[in-house]
């Protein structure tokens, strides 16, 4: 931990992530206005002390909308990450430990899903399921499960050859116990670092999907849909699109710095 904190970039990453989470959790306390309240007389106001990030075409406060928007983005990325992580690890370990036909079938299925560009598949799935937060979550779950599964499979195939696993098996542990107590923990730890990469990809993907109008329907604010509403007013009111983008940038940057830091701390040879 001390070693992790020695690098100022790691500290900065942690702070950025903390800020993003705080914005999501404490949105009602941080927001200065009601994110939904329409005040036509205040439309397209530039940033000021009253409206820190200006106002949009309906006179809504962009700062408050961006703060509330962080809730959706972070919620989707967290839930989809958890789903994909558990699903992927379960499938990957099953394939890696069972081997044979099970392994072959599961991995061919994963290959097929990986043959699609991730964002394209996510767009296709959430378009079919219909717009909304749930369909984006399901789409990202679908897209990322095979990615986790491949990594978990590779890791569990390595781990299962190690002596302590053989020892456990020789002592008569049942396969489920070996998987859960001996292989599992050693598969999960390297995946946690990769999870930070996938988490940041999910935030970007969620933003892209809701930018395209596949996410939470307006007037609910999300980073992506604020950006897309702002696109039409780039000339008159660029602040509507600039600020949510900066929020995405800084949260993703925070996650990436955090992930880099973990990697360097756990594997000091690299970096």
């Amino acid at each position, binding site marked *: 931990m001390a070693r992790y904190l020695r690098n100022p970039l790691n500290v900065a990453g942690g702070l950025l992530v903390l800020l993003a989470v705080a914005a999501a959790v404490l949105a009602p306390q941080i927001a200065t206005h009601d994110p939904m309240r329409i005040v036509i007389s205040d439309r397209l106001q530039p940033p000021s002390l009253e409206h820190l990030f200006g106002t949009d075409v309906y006179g809504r406060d962009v700062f408050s909308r961006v703060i509330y928007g962080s809730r959706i983005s972070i919620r989707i990325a967290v839930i989809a990450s958890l789903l994909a992580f558990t699903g992927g690890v379960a499938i990957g370990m099953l394939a890696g430990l069972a081997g044979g036909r099970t392994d072959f079938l599961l991995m061919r299925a994963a290959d*097929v899903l990986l*043959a699609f560009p991730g*964002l394209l598949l996510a767009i296709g799935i959430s378009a*079919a399921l219909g717009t909304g937060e749930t369909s984006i979550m399901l789409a990202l779950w679908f897209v990322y499960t095979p990615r986790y599964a491949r990594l978990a499979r590779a890791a569990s195939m390595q781990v299962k050859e190690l002596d302590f696993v053989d020892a456990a098996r020789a002592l008569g542990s049942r396969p489920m116990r070996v998987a859960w107590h001996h292989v599992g923990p050693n598969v999960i730890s390297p995946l946690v670092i990769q999870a930070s990469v996938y988490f940041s990809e999910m935030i970007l993907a969620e933003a*892209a999907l809701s930018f395209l109008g596949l996410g939470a329907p307006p007037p609910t604010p999300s980073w992506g849909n604020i950006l897309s509403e702002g696109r039409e007013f780039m000339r008159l009111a*660029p602040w509507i699109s600039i600020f949510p*983008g900066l929020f995405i940038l800084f949260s993703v*940057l925070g996650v990436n710095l955090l992930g880099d830091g973990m990697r360097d701390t756990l594997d000091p040879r690299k970096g």
Partner: protein
Amino acid sequence: MITVIARRVLTLVPVLIAISFVSFLLLALIPGDPAVVMLGADAPPQALERLRAQLGLDRPFLERFGWWLWSAVRGDLGTSLYQQRSVAVMVMERLPVTLLVCVLATIISVVVGVSLGVIAAIQRNRLTDHVVRVLSLVGLSMPDFWFGLILILTFSIRFPIFPITGFVPLDRDFFASLQFFVLPSLALGLTLAGFLTRLTRASMLEVLSADYVRTARSKGLRARTVVLRHALGTALLPLVTVIGLNFGRLLGGAIVIETVFSLPGVGRLIVLAINQRDFPVVQASVLYVAVIFTIVNLLTDLSYVVLDPRVRYS
């Protein structure tokens, strides 16, 4: 080498069948009656009936897939619900735009990413290295479509260098058309460059500490010769795979970026079709783009046969 290539190409067949199965399944994901979802609840019953027949909803699932696959092989992916035109033709018309954006973005990302990565590796732990590392992190943390908007703001609104609206088709006047591609390709290419910079730097550092590079150094060769002649080639080899995989990222990114810049590519087609619930178009576009990605992956694999003498694919 020919047999190696031929065998590898043959493995494409099951992959392509599986890809079309997944694209076909997309329709099955639609909750409720797809015909109602596409045409709306107040559509006349005859129209709904006709669409159900057209989509084959009245036939068993596997028969429907078999039929779909057979038509797809013959290049028939159905008819658009809104334009009464062949979906395959609509996608093919727009594919060149998307591919050009992706190819230009690939070139930009490789040129920028590799040069910055090499510079950072040579200047390891000096100021330049730190600046490059932060820049590349910012690049890969940035939503590419947002960066596109910032580029529009800077180079189309503040300094009106590139046009913001309109389009000249590629086959009418290639060079006039090209100016519409500059900003979108930069938006995709520069954000992706961050990724390649980091990989090049890491790969370069590994190679620079290898024995044969030390030998070259100790022979008294100039630093530049060592880096360019001895280290770079080896360091770039692992990047080939990444460039291939990145193409998938770009194909996904192009969907969004085409919307930002109103470029008439497949991405724009997909987004319009989604808004109109024109599902045959979405399905066909997804299939085509996935097929292209698969072909790019195949080419990447094959390039190793040519580039890396160690790979013999026994």
